[in-house]
Every structure is written in structure tokens, then in C-alpha cells.
């Protein structure tokens, strides 16, 4: 009996405190005619990962500032596969009318849930399946990768550059190839050594991979990973580091050169606006430097002026829409011709890229 009384007291205590904390209702923005946006983001990692999810969350915060965006929520560390189905459904049920799923593994769940909620707009990042109410979006990160490759090619002294890569999927392969083409455009003797970690987010594994590259005399380390661990390994051993996802100059000041980075905010605002105006329709967006979805982090002082100028010149060309990165002649690293002279890869070919270009030391695991 005593216990029941005790718990009743405790419960009322909680109630009291709970109520007194009630939030002040925010001042109503005069509603314009369009649809109010309640957006939700599904993240594969924690927002504090400093990488992929962090970059998306920066974009989410930009979007949240739009006046007609009433509510923006997110769920972090959602496992890919079946577990995500429940989360996405739950968000749709709670009245969120614009849902971003930000990892490839959410592709099937997104399509599945979308079929049950025709009024909700879904945007899936990095996948290839779309539907009436499911659009896809991604960025041509290979463009800044090419640029960062140019920086690496100029900075290396050993002519060995280390690349810590997650999974051998076309997205990562494309990045490696663009980077290598960038390197070789300024330094035909340099090679890029690739180590696969088979994980997006595992600081220890990524650090080990970087260390193994440093052991074979790589003096520039770049990566396609979601933690800064490879960069930290590079700094510790006195090598240069080229990051990914967002500007991490502050974390590895002694090694930082630059990084291909995401500006998700631009695309998130664009989509929100379209949904708000009612102009949204299912598209497969693949934006590059021209839309500012991808960019280069400012090059650090370690990069000489002339190199910076060279890179900026190329950047201006790419941003103008003249993307000639995957234009032949390109050989793969087995000596075969991958892209004939005068030809360029189509977007579809880029999206299913499955070879490594000349200059890459490594192979695509079967």
C-alpha cells in the first residue's frame, strides 16, 4: 500500500514539473496560401558524427528557417533495412508531409511506405528507385573530388596518395575515379592506393586503414567515410589530409588541405519550396557545383597560391556546366579502354560505374 501511495506522489510530482515547463507557443507567422511543411529526416548515423549525417543535419537546420516550415524533426541512428520501415511509417502517420530518407539502405523501405501514404512526399537520397510520390536526390560530389584530387596531386612528394573507402558501390567508385583523374591531370606519376573498410562509420577501422596506407608511404590521405578518424591518423604521422562531407579544418589544422563537401541546405530549401507551392513532382535530382549542392571547402594555407588558382579555375569551368571529368580517353587500371576518345559517360553510366581508372592501385572486391 505504502508503495502505491509513494508512486502516486511521485507521479503528481512529475506532472507538476512537466506542466510548468510548458513551452510558449511560437508567434504565428501570417500564413500564406501554400501548404505548411512538416518535415522529417531519417538519419543513418548520429547527428554528431561530424560526417554524413552531420552534413545533412546542417542542411535540415537551414531548411527549418523557412517561414512555412512548421516543424522539422529527425531520427538518428536508424538501422537500414526492416527496422527503418517502422520508423518511416511512424513519421508518415504522425502527419509529416515531407520525409527525407538519407541513406541508400532506406530505398526499399521508402518505396514501400510511400505506397501507403500517397499524400506524403518522400525524398530518398542516393537511391535509384522512384515513385509518384518518391523523388531521389543526390549530388555530383565527384566534381569537387576531382578538384581535391588536383590539390593532392600537387601536394604529394612520394607520389603515393591513400584513399580510405567504405563500400565498393558506384558512388564510392565514382569518387575514387574522379579523384584519381584529378590527381593525374596535374601529376601523371602519382598513384592512388585504395583500402576498403566495408563500413561507413567505424573510427577504429578507418584509422587502421589510414595507418596501413601511411605505412606504405602515402603522404596525402583522403577518404570516403563518415568519421574524421583517417584524417587524424594522417595528422599524427605528418601527412596531408583531404576530408569529406563537411569542413573539418578545425579538427586537423596541421594536415588539412581541403575537402569535397555537401551543402544539403540548398536542395532541402528547394524541395520544401516546391512542396509548399505545389509545384513538386517526382524527379531524380543530381545536382553539382552549378547548384551549389556540392562544393570545395576553402583550401588551407598549406596549399600554395598557384595551386589554389589552378583549382579555382577548373572549379569555375565545372560550375559553368562544362563537366568533362569522365570524357575519354580514359583507361581502367587493367589497361582496357574504359571511355573512348571523344566520348563522355552518360549519367546512367556514371551511376552504375564499376571500374577503377588507371592510376588506382586496388581492385573492386567481388
Amino acid at each position: 500500500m505504502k508503495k502505491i501511495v509513494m508512486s502516486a506522489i511521485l507521479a503528481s510530482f512529475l506532472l507538476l514539473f512537466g506542466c510548468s515547463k510548458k513551452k510558449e507557443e511560437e508567434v504565428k507567422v501570417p500564413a500564406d496560401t501554400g501548404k505548411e511543411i512538416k518535415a522529417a529526416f531519417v538519419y543513418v548515423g548520429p547527428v554528431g558524427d561530424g560526417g554524413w549525417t552531420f552534413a545533412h543535419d546542417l542542411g535540415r537546420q537551414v531548411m527549418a528557417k523557412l517561414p512555412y516550415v512548421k516543424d522539422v524533426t529527425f531520427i538518428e541512428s536508424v538501422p537500414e533495412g526492416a527496422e527503418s520501415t517502422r520508423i518511416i511509417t511512424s513519421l508518415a502517420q504522425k502527419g509529416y508531409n515531407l520525409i527525407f530518407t538519407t541513406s541508400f539502405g532506406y530505398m526499399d523501405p521508402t518505396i514501400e511506405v510511400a505506397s501507403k501514404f500517397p499524400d506524403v512526399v518522400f525524398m530518398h537520397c542516393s537511391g535509384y528507385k522512384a515513385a509518384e510520390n518518391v523523388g531521389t536526390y543526390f549530388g555530383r560530389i565527384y566534381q569537387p573530388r576531382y578538384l581535391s584530387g588536383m590539390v593532392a596531386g600537387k601536394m604529394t612528394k612520394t607520389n603515393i596518395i591513400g584513399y580510405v573507402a567504405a563500400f565498393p558501390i558506384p558512388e564510392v567508385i565514382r569518387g575514387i575515379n574522379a579523384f584519381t583523374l584529378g590527381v593525374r591531370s596535374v601529376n601523371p606519376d602519382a598513384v592512388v592506393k585504395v583500402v576498403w573498410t566495408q563500413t561507413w562509420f567505424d573510427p577504429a577501422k578507418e584509422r587502421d586503414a589510414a595507418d596501413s596506407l601511411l605505412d606504405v608511404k602515402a603522404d596525402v590521405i583522403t577518404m570516403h567515410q563518415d568519421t574524421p578518424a583517417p584524417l587524424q591518423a594522417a595528422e599524427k604521422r605528418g601527412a596531408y589530409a583531404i576530408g569529406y562531407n563537411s569542413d573539418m579544418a578545425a579538427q586537423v589544422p596541421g594536415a588539412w588541405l581541403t575537402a569535397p563537401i555537401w551543402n544539403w541546405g540548398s536542395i532541402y530549401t528547394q524541395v520544401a519550396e516546391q512542396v509548399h507551392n505545389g509545384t513538386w513532382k517526382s524527379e531524380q535530382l543530381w545536382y553539382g557545383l552549378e547548384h551549389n549542392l556540392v562544393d570545395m571547402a576553402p583550401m588551407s594555407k598549406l596549399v600554395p597560391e598557384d595551386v589554389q588558382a589552378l583549382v579555382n579555375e577548373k572549379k569555375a569551368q565545372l560550375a559553368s556546366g562544362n563537366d568533362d571529368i569522365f570524357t575519354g580517353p580514359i583507361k581502367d587500371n587493367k589497361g582496357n579502354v574504359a571511355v573512348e576518345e571523344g566520348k563522355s559517360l552518360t549519367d546512367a553510366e556514371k551511376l552504375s560505374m564499376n571500374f577503377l581508372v588507371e592510376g588506382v592501385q586496388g581492385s573492386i572486391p567481388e
Partner: protein
Amino acid sequence: MIRFEKRKDISKYFAMTAPFVSVLLALTTAGCIMLFAGVNPLKAYMGMFHESLGSVYGITETLVKATPLIFTGLGVSVAFRMKIWNIGADGQLYMGAIGASWVALFSGLTGFAAMIGMFLAAAFCGGLWASVAGFLKAKVRVNEIIVTLLMNYIAAAWVSYLVYGPWKDPKGFNFPITQRFSPDIMLSHFMTYRLNTGFLLAVALVIILYILVEKTIWGYEIKVIGDNPNAAKYAGIKIDRSIIGVMFLSGALAGIAGYVEVAGVQGRLQEGISQGYGYTAIIVAWLAGRSAIGVLIVSVIMAVILVGGDSLQILMQLPVAFVNMFQGLILFFILASDFFIHNKISIRRSGK
């Protein structure tokens, strides 16, 4: 000096109320932390309840989550009856998923035959995986905890090998997943929900296991061995054979969990099928007090906590770390109550 003593007689009233009190304490503790985070705990708890039990959808999702816990919980629990600790339900689940996936993708069977084949292959693979530990324990007295635990990693590595290598979907853009199973061999769903016949299978197995353990001669043998191996030997029970048999059954049940996950929910083999179900199963079996019916109830409660936890993130914007901590707190308090049901504390002053 603080001493813990085993209680001789456990008061029924105390045993019944303690878990509830402990959950309440856990909720209160977590509530205080929520207050610090600026969240109204009552609102949060209402949200959790609503998420997991407040709608048909919520209930079906809770049962979907409970399904693998029931299978693995039963598996761990049946071994536990014999005082064998099967820490390897996770690995057995993966082996079951591999077995079922092989039948689905490569056996050439279709329709109902394929479903039966998947079920049997999953049970067999899971069972065989666990029997290795059973065999080592029975024949050379190797500690089954170590063996089953370490074999979890091997099983997970097998799944990785298959989905990165030979079983990789050729159209999957190199992503580590197999092809989708054809829809006609998937478990049928309840209306448009994800709840599938796997749950019914789980309930059926609860009943079968209850009968097996409580009503059959074989169950009697297990109980005697678990209670007093010397008495079992004295009664002429073949202990070694029973150990291997029980481990096979235990692993087979976990293997079926793998089958239901791939054929009912995922639709393909990939990494991370088990969200630590095999480990949660240990807690389930422990709290269920060795009874099959108890496993069913505790699994559903666990599922409520797990599914409800999502709402803390969605509604309250609490970080995932908080959700994990909250779930941990509840388990911790329940386990503590279990401890206090069976033990009493006495504080003795030291001195001459």
C-alpha cells in the same frame, strides 16, 4: 558489512508487485532525467504508449518486433531449463537466416514447398550451429557460454561474406544485399500491416514448447537435469545426449527467428537482420522465469519498450543515446527487482 542472502520463502505478493514497482522506479528515474532535458515525462510516456499500443498499426508493429524475441527467447529459455546458457541465439538466428535464404534464392523450390523448405533449413542450420556448443559441452566439458558467444561473431561474418560475395544481388549496385525473395514465398501479412504469419508461428511454438517442457517425458528429463544433474544420472537419464538435443532445439528456435525475419520482414538476406535479438533474448528468458508463456509476455513488453522508444526521438526530439539509456534503465531496474525477489540484504555492523 552488507550481505546478500538467498531468500528461503519468496512471498507471492512481493514477487508479483516487485516488477511493477521496479518499472515505476525506472520510469521515475528516467523522468527526472527527462526533466533535466526539458521534456515533460508524462507526455513522453503517453507518446510511448501511443506509439506502441495506441493504434492498430502500433500494436502490429509491436508484435512484429516481439516475434523474433519470442523465438530466440524460447530458445534461450529451453536451454536455461537445463542450466545451459545459450548466449549464441544471435548467431543461430543468422545461421537460420542463411539457411532460409539459400532455399529462397538457390533451391529452385517455389510457393508452399519453398516456405516449408525455408522453415526447415532455418531450424536445421540454427540447430546445428548451437549443437556444436552442445557437443563440446557434453563431450569435452567446454564452457558453452564462451563457445556460443564467440560463434555469434563467426555467424555474422558468414552473413557478411555471403552478401558481399557470392550471394550479392547482381543488380544491387554492389550494395551488400541479396536479391529480393519472390513475393510468393514471403510470409503473408495481416491486412496492409507488416504483422505476418511469423507471429502466429511464434505463438504456436510457445504452446508447443510449453507442452514439450511441462507435459512430456522429454521435458521431465530436462527439468531433472537442470535441477540436479546427479539425480538425473542416478535416475538413469543420458545427460550428454540431452545436452546436445536441447542445444539443437534451442538453436533451431533461434534459427526460425532468422527465417521469420528474412521471409516476413526483410525479404532478403543482409547484415544487421538481428537488432541484437539474441542478446535481448537472454534477458527475456531470465525475466520469463523459464516459462514459455512468460517468454511470450515478456517479449511483448520488451517490444513495447523498444517500439515506444522511437517516439521519444520523434516527438520529444531526445537523442538516440537517451532512448538507449532509457531502455537500459528499465532493464536494469527489472533485473534488480528480480534479484531482490530472490535475495535479501542484511547489514551487519562489524566489530568484535
